[in-house]
């Protein structure tokens, strides 16, 4: 009989590889009797979905402000950087 630890490993690995028939059956049996592992399975799937939805939906994080000093520094670097277009035309 699988322990919850084993079951959680199979649930996780099921996201990354194909489980064997034997593993699948063992996991189904365990999930049938175990509320916590059923929740774990749901949450792992949920997390993946939420992350990928935010990600591929272009809903990327924008909450951090690039610090002033860094902006100044980068602005200077960009200014000093030779303009490739004008170099090639001269």
């Amino acid at each position, binding site marked *: 009989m699988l*322990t*919850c*630890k*084993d079951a*959680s*490993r199979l649930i*996780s*690995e099921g*996201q*990354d*590889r194909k489980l064997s028939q034997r593993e699948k059956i063992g996991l189904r049996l365990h999930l049938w009797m175990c*509320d*916590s*592992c059923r*929740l*774990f399975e749901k*949450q*792992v799937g*949920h*997390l*993946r979905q*939420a*992350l*990928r939805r*935010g*990600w*591929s939906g*272009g*809903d*990327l*994080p*924008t*909450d*951090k*402000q*690039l*610090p002033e000093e*860094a*902006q100044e*520094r*980068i*602005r200077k*670097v*960009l*200014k000093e*950087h030779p*303009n*490739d*277009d*004008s170099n090639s035309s001269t």
Partner: protein
Amino acid sequence: MSISDPERWLEEHGSALYSFALLHVRDGHRAEDLVQETLLAALKARERFQGNASLRTWLIGILKHKIMDEFRRQSREAPIPDSPEDAWDAAEARRAAENFTDNGRWSQPLTNWGDSEQDFSRDQFWSLIEQCLAALSPRMARLFVLRELWEMETKEVCKELAITPTNLWTTLHRARLGMRQCLEKNLCA
């Protein structure tokens, strides 16, 4: 295009690039450097920018290349140990094991999150994710992000970072346990 464009890129997209970088590297200075490297690379390659993609998407694409280089470097500098005695590995394993009792049951019953994450704004969601990633070991966070965010195939992750599939699966299992625990703590607080 005039030379003033890159400065506008900085104004309009600098903070988005910075926020994105911070999801992947923990050090703020390193994240600033990545923004700078990205804009410089964009400046060099700007004639290759196709107007049909959004500028931000294009810049994020360049930043992703920089981040992957960083991940490869970190992975080379701190190679993944084969021996279970290794300290990093032991700490990771111990933290994962804390989720379970000695006979392999959950040490605390899991809580149903319900729809609580629906109440989160985009920025709240990402800052929670960032906070939970920061609680993982850097190696765990790297692999988790590549797999769950970047949607890279397991084979590809193994190849890029020179690790075995077994090692990847074990690490992802621990990372998911850690993320779950952290999210539960925050969602059900």
